[in-house]
């Protein structure tokens, strides 16, 4: 293993994040606060509890994941797209790095930043509502799995995208709508049929409910199912990355 090479890429990426540290952290804090004001106060005053959990606390896992999705995809896709765009990728390709090592550097850095943002949101939430986590270790591991998966997904988007606008297409047109429709801020039990059944085809439902279960011990789907769905998505992304490096897709002429 070329650990030094992995560490070099990781540090390079983390350094890039540090250059925009304050906006990078202010944005999630402000958006989280806005969500609490809008959802927590406006809706929460009418809808006090879901499944025995105060509404304000109920939305915390969903809020964290919403940011994890966008941060992971954005950081990882930008991280690999930039060197492709400027041409500095030549150095990565000519280095004694395996595909796995390269991905570990980029995805590791993107995941670190997304995790930090998620924890900042968690801390911000404490300012508004009481939140306690029933299974802290499981919560952390589950969050890590989701983060890594979306960073790999972002990495694929960064390779696939032909320009910077394409980097935005998938997060804005697919991931964000699926997040809002996937029970991040409500229980799918509250939906009437056929919407309830249709919603079960939305993968985000499993991610959010798996994470929510680690907080409150109750959720719309069983934790095992949620874990299996997340692992399946992670596997699909791994396969995609493996294929990219095997064929040199958009990396090598």
């Amino acid at each position, binding site marked *: 293993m*070329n650990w*030094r*090479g992995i*560490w*070099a*890429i990781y540090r*390079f990426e983390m*350094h*890039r994040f540090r*250059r925009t540290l304050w906006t990078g952290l202010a944005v999630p804090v402000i958006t989280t606060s806005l969500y609490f004001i809008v959802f927590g106060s406006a809706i929460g005053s009418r809808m006090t509890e879901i499944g025995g959990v105060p509404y304000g606390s109920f939305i915390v896992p969903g809020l964290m994941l919403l940011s994890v999705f966008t941060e992971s995809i954005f950081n990882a896709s930008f991280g690999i797209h930039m*060197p492709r765009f*400027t*041409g*500095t990728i*030549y*150095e*990565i*390709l*000519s*280095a*004694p*790095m*395996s595909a796995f090592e390269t991905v570990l550097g980029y995805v590791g850095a993107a995941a670190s930043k997304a995790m930090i943002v998620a924890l900042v949101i968690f801390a911000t939430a404490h300012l508004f509502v009481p939140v306690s986590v029933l299974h802290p270790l499981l919560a952390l591991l589950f969050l890590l799995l989701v983060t890594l998966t979306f960073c790999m997904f972002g990495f694929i988007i960064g390779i696939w995208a032909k320009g910077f606008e394409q980097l935005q297409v998938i997060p804005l047109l697919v991931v964000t709508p699926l997040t809002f429709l996937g029970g991040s801020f409500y229980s799918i039990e509250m939906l009437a049929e056929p919407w309830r059944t249709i919603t079960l085809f939305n993968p985000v439902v499993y991610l959010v409910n798996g994470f929510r279960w680690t907080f409150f011990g109750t959720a719309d789907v069983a934790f095992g199912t949620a874990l299996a769905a997340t692992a399946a998505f992670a596997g699909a992304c791994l396969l995609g990355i493996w294929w990219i490096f095997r064929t*040199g897709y958009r990396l*090598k*002429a």
Partner: protein
Amino acid sequence: MSDPILSIRGLRKAYASGTEALKAVDLDIRRGEIFALLGPNGAGKTTLISIVCGLVTASGGEVLVDGKNWQTHYREVRRRIGLVPQELTTDAFEPVISTVSFSRELFGKPRDPAKIEEILRTLTLWDKRKTIMKELSGGMKRRVMIAKALAHEPDILFLDEPTAGVDVELRKDMWNMVRRLREQGVTIILTTHYIEEAEEMADRVGVIAKGELILVEDKAALMQKLGRKILHLQLVEPLAAVPSALAPWQPQLSEDGATLTYEFDAKADRTGIPSLLAALRDEGITFKDLDTKQSSLEDIFVDLIQQQRQEAAE
């Protein structure tokens, strides 16, 4: 050749667009030499280097470094290779010293601030070490790219058109550096489309055109072989026509009658110049200046290819 450091065997490349950039190239590079790959634009020089360095996939053939296949032993092979690509590509916001240290670590070498300082000083970059890349001039960026390629102390260095768009000073610095590296035992492969550059720097020269390696020669031998030269004579008194006494040399007279040009074969034992000059003196034609020029690289390629065809036909 015994024990080449780099061996290229039947290397082919057809791009997805259909362009056949390399047609089964065979080439052995000797340990410690400076090898110039000489060819016009589009000849396939960058493609060849890119395949060796892992930036482009080959359509066929293989590359061996000290007998090790460049794909199955990519770690060992790449650790030993440094690449300065043709295009200037840099991370705009990185300071010089970080981007050079990054390269060293990316190649798996432990941090070594003293080594990095030495490299930056040799390339007169030390004073600029904290400047971010986008604030550097083109020449300075080129120096940084060289520093990055040297940061992991490779023993094979590829320089793709190192002097394209480079000022005189940097060119001189660069050649000095290349010579020093050679003294340290580094094998250097550079590409160029200037004959003069190949002539000045290389131990051996390979001529490539349209994806084919036309010939590989020791520089001295090649320079003798290479092409025709043109002699220009600036006359003191313009002539109305070429005097019949000069007819054997078939010289051309310019329209204003003030310049006489004579094309000769630089590789011939007898260039015909001394006898031409003697004939001029006998005719009482005086000139105030003279110079000789190499014919263009394109002309030479055409010559070489025709020569090869003739040899093949015989």
